[in-house]
């Protein structure tokens, strides 16, 4: 037992261990070609080491030559694997050069094996030599064959390839890698080759230490790979903690994550998203399934939004309703981003979705409150008006009463003061005029000032008013239907005033349906071309109990109301506005409901169409 019999097997063992480890890694998923190459190289070096040991110990020439002949196999594998490693690890260098080098080497070595007399090299004589510690080993006198140059050339080409690849790596910034891996492979390849040549030419009496050189390379390669593995591990850890953070964030707000693979059609969704839609944890979801879960009212809009996003390559943004698993309607707000292939074909859409029902309900509450406020504002302005009115009128009226009472008392005395009486009468007349003035001012306040006629798109007008009143109607469980015939032309009018009229009629209509049962509360708005003349008729109908005849007669009178609050000015003002638009506000009523309809003149330019 000497150090030779100790060291070479150790090299073998080390190489094999490294080879196995990296083989295991290479068998995992992902880009593992470098690990495979490394594994091969390590195996090859292990084999080389075995062969070297055998060569050192063989005392028989025949055997020596057999071993020498076959030794090229692991060497070729080593060179090929090293080249392959550089190629797959660096991803630089000329593939053609690499292939030629490897191919040439293969050629030379195959020739060496199959030829009668090895064409690259063979031993002619053996002798024993001693090295450190007095250990004996076999040295051979090598004669090189005609293909020797081929083999050398192939190695040179391999080195050239590696050098080129390393240089490119260096230039593109991977300096350490280029130096450590590229540099070491080249260096040790040269070293081992050089040493081997020296030994073969008899200039040096030493054991081959190709395996030593190669293990140095293996270690260098291994270190680099090890760095990668370490980096991968730390990335994995980071990813895990990032994932946890995302999960936490997601959980905190019940954020749903989704990913739609457009190519295969599958949709991945996280637990929160599945829960929102009432979809099972393992159920497969595709676009159709998803759309079927969306509320039918919103389905077409959602499909349209998705389509638009796909076409324009823009982000997807949508809000829609979903029937959640506990049966109630939930509002979802969704966002998605497209992943395109080279800017053309959409590959996937990834996004988030959030339950915004609370927001919505408070939004609609807000809307409703705003509406109520506006409504109250209108009433309170009237209320304020009424209060101011009362005060303004009570002064003169009070004075008149007092004067009259005083006059009465004076007259009951035997000799009333006539001057005083005259003064009283004068004052009464003046106060009466004052009161009259107050009434006049009120009337002029109610008369609409000049209407500013503009061209109004009727459908748009109705849409705006509907939007304002929708929340109110929903809160009162009144079904609001509206339709506008397609051929309705634009009209001339004052937008704000017309909105007021519509709001007034709608509020009245909803009030009329208050008594009806939930399912029967219906308000219908329609608009169409008038049968007579160039005008548009807008109607607001309710499903209320109708208006009794005595009330009907006074319905448009000012200060007439059947409601406990409100001044009874709404219809009066509405009528005034409509009439100022040269239209007519008419009412028809029956036990099934009431309809208010008014007409507006068509805007001049389209009157002829």
């Amino acid at each position, binding site marked *: 037992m000497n150090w030779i019999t100790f060291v070479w097997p150790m090299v073998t063992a080390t190489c094999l261990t490294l080879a196995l480890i990296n083989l295991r890694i290479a068998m995992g998923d992902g880009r593992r070609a470098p690990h495979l190459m490394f594994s091969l190289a390590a195996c090859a070096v292990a084999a080389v080491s075995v062969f070297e040991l055998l060569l050192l110990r063989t005392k028989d020439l025949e055997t020596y030559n057999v071993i020498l002949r076959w030794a090229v196999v692991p060497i070729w594998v080593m060179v090929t694997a090293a080249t392959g490693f550089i190629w797959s690890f660096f991803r630089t260098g000329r593939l053609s050069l690499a292939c030629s080098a490897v191919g040439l080497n293969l050629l030379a070595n195959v020739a060496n094996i199959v030829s009668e007399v090895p064409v690259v090299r063979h031993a002619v004589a053996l002798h024993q030599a001693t090295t450190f510690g007095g250990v004996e080993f076999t040295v051979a006198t090598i004669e090189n064959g005609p293909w020797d140059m081929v083999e050398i050339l192939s190695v040179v080409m391999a080195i050239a390839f590696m050098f080129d690849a390393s240089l490119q790596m260096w230039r593109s910034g991977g300096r350490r890698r280029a130096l450590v891996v590229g540099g070491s492979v080249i260096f040790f390849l040269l070293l081992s080759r050089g040493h081997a040549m020296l030994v073969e030419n008899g200039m040096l009496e030493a054991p081959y230490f190709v395996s030593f050189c190669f293990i140095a390379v293996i270690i260098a390669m291994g270190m680099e790979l090890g760095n990668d593995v370490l980096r991968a591990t730390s990335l994995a850890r980071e990813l895990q903690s990032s994932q946890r953070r995302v999960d936490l964030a997601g959980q905190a707000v019940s954020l749903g994550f989704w990913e739609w693979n457009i190519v295969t059609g599958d949709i991945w969704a996280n637990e929160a998203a599945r829960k929102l839609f009432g979809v099972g944890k393992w159920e497969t979801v595709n676009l159709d399934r998803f759309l079927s879960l969306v509320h039918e009212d919103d389905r077409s809009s959602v499909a349209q939004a998705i389509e638009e996003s796909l076409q324009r390559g823009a982000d997807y943004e949508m809000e829609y309703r979903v029937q959640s698993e506990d049966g109630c309607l939930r509002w979802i707000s969704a966002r998605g981003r497209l992943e395109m292939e080279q800017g053309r074909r959409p590959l996937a859409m990834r996004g988030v979705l959030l339950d915004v029902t609370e927001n919505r309900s408070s939004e609609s509450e807000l809307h409703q409150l705003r509406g109520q406020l506006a409504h109250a504002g209108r009433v309170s302005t009237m209320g304020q008006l009424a209060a101011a009115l009362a005060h303004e009128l009570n002064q003169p009226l*009070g004075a008149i009463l007092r004067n009259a009472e005083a006059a009465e008392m004076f007259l009951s005395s035997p000799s009333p003061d006539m001057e005083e009486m005259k003064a009283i009468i004068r004052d009464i007349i003046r106060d009466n005029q004052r009161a009259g003035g107050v009434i006049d001012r009120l009337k002029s306040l109610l008369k609409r000032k000049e209407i500013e006629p503009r061209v109004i798109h009727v459908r748009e007008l109705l849409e705006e008013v509907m939007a304002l009143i929708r929340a109110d109607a929903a809160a009162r469980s009144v079904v609001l239907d509206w339709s506008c015939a397609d051929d309705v032309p634009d009209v001339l009018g004052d937008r704000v005033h017309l909105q007021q009229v519509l709001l007034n009629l709608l509020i009245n209509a909803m009030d009329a349906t208050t008594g009806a049962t939930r399912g029967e509360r219906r308000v219908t708005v329609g608009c169409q071309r008038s049968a007579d003349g160039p005008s548009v008729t807008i109607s607001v109908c309710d499903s209320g109990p109708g208006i009794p005849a005595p009330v009907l007669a006074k319905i448009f009178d000012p200060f007439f109301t059947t409601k406990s609050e409100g001044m009874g000015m709404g219809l009066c003002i509405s009528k005034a506005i409509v009439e100022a638009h040269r239209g007519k506000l008419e009412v028809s009523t029956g036990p099934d409901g009431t309809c208010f309809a008014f007409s507006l003149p068509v805007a001049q330019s389209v009157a002829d169409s």
Partner: protein
Amino acid sequence: MTHAATVHLIDDDDSFLRAAARLLRASGFRVKVYASARDFLDDAGQEHQGCVISDLQMPGMSGLELQDAMHGKGITLPLVFLTGNGDIPSTVSAMRKGAVDFLEKRAPKQQLLDAVNRALELDEKAHQQRQHEQAMRSRLSCLSDREIEVLGHVVRGSMNKVIASDLGIHERTVKLHRTAITTKLGMHSVAELTRLWMEVRGEMPAGR
């Protein structure tokens, strides 16, 4: 009415002021008119008797502000509010602070006159009460210090003997003082004396 009770009428509305004054005068009241609360307050130097009839909503100082100002100045005339349009919070506030009544301007004549009469009655009663107190006070003031001391004990119900020992004087001296007291005050029973004491001093004399 034994003294000149005046109805002070305050309103910024000229016409109503005149008309109301007419009515009240025709009903036999003595009326003074002011176009603003400030005018009335500026004039309140002398001892006024009567009542105040004021509008609620006035530019400058409002009716409620006038009420507070009167309290501040110690003017105790009863107050009746008239208004063109009353709102409940004002009513409550006014009544809480001691207004006699709160009427609409267009209230029937009788309501107004009733309110004025009530106010004047209240004022009269208060006036008499004040006068009575004044009289009592002045009567007490004619007693000497010693006599007041003795009176205090008498009112407490102590016997002459006890009073004498408390004050360190002869019982005979106590009897002399008591005679002087009854003569000066013209009251004989202890009950009367006690009542007088309470009215003037407001509380029983300090005990032993």
